[in-house]
């Protein structure tokens, strides 16, 4: 290996390491999950490292949000792939997931010993109802973002009842909803340019 090849190889391994480190950092500092991390990702990936342009980032956020899976992982995979193809994607994905993995493991091992401690147990008796409320809040926020109206409000209600009462798996609901969206788009929504007045309320 001559010195030029060696330099290229070093540069490549550096960018693996660099992208791994960057997403490791993003993984650590994502507190509360989700959209809180968008500014951090933009700062690191767009402004500092310039791996992705600002416009690409906007597209990428939209795609990562609509695709299944963990938002941060979707972004990491995409940026990693852009840098170094599949191996790059693996590096950034591991980088994002590793901090969570290590921190949770440490807590899981630690917590299983303290779960029956009366002080910890009392704290968690208070925490549990609060957490149920924390899951109820995004239900309403998401409902607002989905622009539910008289004609669509039955969809979440029926989906929730099917899962809650009948024990239907949410996976079937997702499949049915995607299929319904596809069929609706294909056969009914031909006048896409004129959105229905129901969805246009301020």
């Amino acid at each position, binding site marked *: 290996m001559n010195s030029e090849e060696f330099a290229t190889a070093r540069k490549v391994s550096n960018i693996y390491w660099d992208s791994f480190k960057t997403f490791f950092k993003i993984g650590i500092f994502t507190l509360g999950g989700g959209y809180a991390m968008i500014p951090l990702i933009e700062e690191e990936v767009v402004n500092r490292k310039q791996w992705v342009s600002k416009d690409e980032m906007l597209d990428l956020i939209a795609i990562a949000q609509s695709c299944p899976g963990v938002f941060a992982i979707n972004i990491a995979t995409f940026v990693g792939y852009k840098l170094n193809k599949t191996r790059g994607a693996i590096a950034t994905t591991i980088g994002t997931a590793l901090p969570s993995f290590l921190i949770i493991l440490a807590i899981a091992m630690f917590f299983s010993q303290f779960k029956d401690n009366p002080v910890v147990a009392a704290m968690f008796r208070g925490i549990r109802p609060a957490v149920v409320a924390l899951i109820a809040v995004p239900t309403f926020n998401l409902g607002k973002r989905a622009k539910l109206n008289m004609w669509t409000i039955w969809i979440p209600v029926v989906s929730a009842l099917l899962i809650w009462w009948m024990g239907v798996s*949410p996976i079937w609901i997702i499949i049915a909803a995607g299929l319904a969206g596809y069929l609706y788009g294909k056969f009914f929504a031909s006048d896409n340019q004129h959105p229905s007045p129901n969805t246009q309320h301020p």
Partner: protein
Amino acid sequence: MIFVKLFITFFEIGIFGFGGGYGMLSLIQHETVEHWHWLSSSEFTDIVAISQMTPGPIGINSATYCGYTAIYNAGYGHWVAVLGSATATFALVLPSLILMILISRMFMKYMHTRTVTAIFAGLRPAVVGLLAAATLLLCTRENFSTPQEDLWQFCISCLLFVASFYGVKVIKINPIHMILYSAVAGLVLLY
């Protein structure tokens, strides 16, 4: 074999987990609590609380934790349980990895077509229903107690539920702070 089941379950959750961390929680809850009975509903609620309070995406945190607890509850030791969390996390991430690589390789141009937009439009209201179901399914005896069993705890639980909902939704208190406040309330009122 529980590891294979764990892998398949979390792989499915990775494929169908639309709607961000919370949307994914309803799938995790359904599969691990309702379907496979790997965890109790109070264990799941504790995991959500801890996933919320620790750094990292909620989906990854809770998958790691659920994988660990599922194996540990099945009667294995701590180190085998570590393998469980690795399995769950890897299985959850794998569909994202595959899908995003496929999209960046060839489907980028299809992402803005009418068909794809229509499918996503169909999914959105259903994900709201998924979250509503997760909320309802977590309103259990284990999380709230019952009036017959312990009237005081039941009332405090309902109060904390309403206060947290109002606090986060209306006053916009940071959810992590809200969890800490309710931990203090639990310590003072439910010790």
